[in-house]
Every structure is written in C-alpha cells, then in structure tokens.
C-alpha cells in the first residue's frame, strides 16, 4: 500500500500552530473499481444475460404456479421421510458437535504449542470442510447402503468440520488470564482447560452447534437425491414424475419444519448469549 500513497499523495493538514498532519487518501475508489471489474468478469464468464431472463423467465413461474396449489392428500406419505430427515440432522449434528471438541482443542494455537500438530489438524479440518456434503453422502451409501445411516454420516462429517473450525476460533480469542492463573495454581493443562476455558466457550459452542443443526435440516432434505434417505428421496421422485403439486406439498411441510426449528433454536441461542 506504500505504492498507493506515492501515486496519490497524502493530504497535508496544517494546524494553526504550524504542525503538519498527513492524512492518507481513501482506498475506497480503488476497491470499488475492482469490485465493478469483478462483477463484469463474472457476468462474462457465466454467460449471464438479461435478455434470456426477459425471454424465458416466465417458465420459472409455470412450475412455481403448479407448486402453489399443494396436493394435501399427499401429506400422509410425507411424515415418515420428514421424520427421517429430522432424525438424520439431529443425530448427525449431535455426533458431529461432540467429535469436533477434541479436534478444535488440538487446532488452537494458544493451547497446543506443537506447530506440526496444529498444521496437521487444521489441514485435516479444511479438507473435510471442502468435501461437499452430497459427495460424503454418496460415498457413505457405498458403505451403509441406501438409507438414513448414510445421511446421518454425511451430516456428522459436515457438522464436525464446521463446528470444529468455529470452536477453535472461539478458543483462540478467549481470555487466557484465567488459564494462566490455573497453571500458577498447579493445575495440569486438561484441568486448566476445563475450569478456565470451557466456561468461556461453552455458550458459544452450544450456540454454533444449534445453528448448524438449523442448517442441517435443510441440507438433510436434499441428501435423498443421492439415496441417503429422508425428504430428498420423495422430492427427487416427484420432480421426476412432474407431480409438482406433491412437490409443493413437500416444500410446504419442509418450510413449516424449518421455521419451527429455527424459531426454537433462535430462542435458545438468545438465552445462551
């Protein structure tokens, strides 16, 4: 950025007593230009065109209109896959959140001084986070076969990587004073962690886990596409048959469920903070 200051010289402000203060020029114009260039490039690369939207946009509403008159008689066969979806996300979120704890501890630079351990655990978490959940679910179906077990596994893996990263970032921003005090008292590192750091990160950890669970209900709903059970299974089937009124019904139920879970989870998270 020193280059920037050479091209656009800082503004000189002279005080009444003769002292000079230099105020650097704002970086905003350059950032704005870069942003516009990036937008233009992405439009070119993705082949986005307003013309197509004007021309064929109405097609979107054709299917949507059919979905807007949901087939309520189909409701009866939705409950089981819906429960499967919720079970997958609940169990997966629970297992993943717990598994994340030891890895998050090993990835926190303020607790682990060994740089090799830190790097290995962090790279591992990044790799796991990079694998799309759909791919994990697909792979899992080769192990457990078609069904909710594969979905649960996929959700567990995703939750593990997400909560793991959030948790180690929380641990790293914790106030280490109490930890230092515990060490001075003669507590080992495990005891010092449990009594000085855990109380500081626990509310945040529970909150992140719950937030992850909210999202997982939505993810779990599409895992059925690769045979991992739940709503996605019938969603895929009904779209295939072009029974859009049934699809509408499934989405309506999913919407209601997600809304309910988010409301409850939000209320709990607010209490935790």
């Amino acid at each position, binding site marked *: 950025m020193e280059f920037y200051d050479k091209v656009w010289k800082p503004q000189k402000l002279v005080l009444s007593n003769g002292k000079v203060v230099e105020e650097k020029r704002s970086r905003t114009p350059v950032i704005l230009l870069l942003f516009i260039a990036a937008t233009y490039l992405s439009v070119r690369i993705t082949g986005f065109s307003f013309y197509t939207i004007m021309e064929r946009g109405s097609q979107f509403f054709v299917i949507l209109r059919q979905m807007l008159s949901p087939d309520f008689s189909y409701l009866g066969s939705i409950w089981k896959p819906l429960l499967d979806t919720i079970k997958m996300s609940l169990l997966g979120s629970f297992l993943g959140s717990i598994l994340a704890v030891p890895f998050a501890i090993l990835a926190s630079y303020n607790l682990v001084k060994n740089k090799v351990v830190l790097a290995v655990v962090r790279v591992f978490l990044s790799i796991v986070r990079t694998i799309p959940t759909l791919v994990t679910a697909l792979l899992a179906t080769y192990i457990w076969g078609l069904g909710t077990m594969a979905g649960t596994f996929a959700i567990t893996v995703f939750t593990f990587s997400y909560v793991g990263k959030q948790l180690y970032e929380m641990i790293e921003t914790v*106030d280490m*004073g*109490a930890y*230092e*005090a*515990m*060490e*001075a*008292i*003669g*507590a*080992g590192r*495990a*005891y010092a962690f*449990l*009594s*000085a750091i855990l*109380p*500081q990160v626990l*509310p945040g950890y529970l909150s992140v886990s719950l937030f992850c669970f909210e999202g997982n209900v939505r993810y779990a709903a599409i895992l059925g596409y690769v045979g991992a059970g739940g709503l996605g299974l019938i969603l895929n089937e009904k779209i295939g048959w072009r029974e859009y009124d049934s699809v509408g019904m499934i989405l309506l139920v999913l919407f209601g469920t997600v809304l309910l879970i988010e409301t409850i989870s939000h209320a709990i998270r607010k209490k935790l903070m």
Partner: protein
Amino acid sequence: MIEFKDVSKIYSNGVVGLDHVNLTIEQGEFVGIIGLSGAGKSTLLRSINRMHDITSGSLMVDGLEISKLKTKELRNFRRKIGMIFQSFNLVTRTTVIRNVLMAKVPDMTFWRVLLGVFKKEDKIEALENLDKVGILDKAYIRADQLSGGQQQRVALARTLTQNPQIILADEPVAALDPVTAKQVMNDFKRINQEMNISILINIHHVELALEYADRIIGIRAGKIVYDGPSKDVTEEVLNTIYEGKIPNEMEEA
C-alpha cells in the same frame, strides 16, 4: 524461605531478565519489589513459581531446587504458592464462588472438574475466604458484575483457598483507583500478619510500597540495586533504582 543463588535469566531474544541475582526471603516477610517497567520485576516474581524458567543459578524454595522439578512435582509445588495478577485473571462469565473454588481444582477427580461439582467443605472454605476479604455477599454474583477492586479480592480469596505459604502479586493494584488500591493493600497486610504468609509484591506506586512493605527490593536492568528495610529508602536510593527518573508520585508527595 526463598533463596536465589547467582540466578540469571536471558530470554530467547537476548534480553537479560535477571542478572546474577542473590536474594534470601524468610517465611512471613512482606516484600515490595520496585523498578522501571522492563527492569525484571515480573521475571523475578515469576521465576519463583517457574512461570518463567531461569537460565542459570540455583533457586530454592523451602529447600526444594525449583529448576530441577519435573512436571508433576512442579504442579504439586505450585499449589503452595498463590499468585495475584494485574488483570485479576478470573473467569468473568461465572460466579464469584466458582472462581474461588478453582483453587481446589488440582486436587479434584476428573469427573468433578468436568461437571463442575464441588464438595460441601470446599464451598464452606471458599465462602469463609470471601468473608475474610469482605465480599461474602457477592458470592453468587457473576464475576463480571463486580468492580475492579472487588474482582481483585475474588482473586485474593481464590489464592487463600489454596492455603499458600507464599503469595506472589504481580502489579496487583496497577489497574485500580488509589482508594481501592489502598483497600486491597490493607487486605495483603492483614493476610501477611494474621496468617504469616510471605508476600512478594511488584508495584509501580512507590509510596504504597514504602507504606505497606517491610522490605524493599529495587531492581534495575535485571540487577538488584537495593535490598533493605523500607524505612531506609531515601531519595538517593530511588534515584539509583529509577535511573534518575523519579516517578511522578514522589514529585507530588
């Protein structure tokens, strides 16, 4: 009894923390350590419970060679030594009594620590120590609701719950206003006299050091340049310790 014999500490970046320090402190003394920032006050204090390792020399506490202790022995040793910090170092999200009870954590079983379940007799001891520092009524309030002075007393109660023989206090009143600072210093004095606990305090406020400590150790660039009764500290002595830059408080006094 604490004995420094030719103790030196050189940090990995080459900075000399302690330079051939020789020192003997008897049980029950009240010692004020003064000197400029970076002179080595903290290093001196923290080498006693080995929060900092020394580079050379011998440091004995009650006949125990500190630098030779293994991890387990070091932890056992640290239980007898209390430490008070400038920033209190409490878990502010939790209650006062739980903070005090943390002193018992090293002796507890894993499950009790994990679940935070404390024994009744420990709770009573913690409450009694809160009473000693005059904040018994705050026991079940979250620590972050308290003022700085009250938080430092919580830290003091936590230290007392360790039943220490020595208390090391690293700038304990630096973050407090003058009135609160005096109250906390009074607590230290009382604990020192009533319980015969040795107290070593690093302190920037020279007049507080002279008022409360029986013995003053002046440190400059890692060397001990004064060691004697606080009543014998003269302007000249302070000039030596502070390299001629007498602190503001003395000019005002």
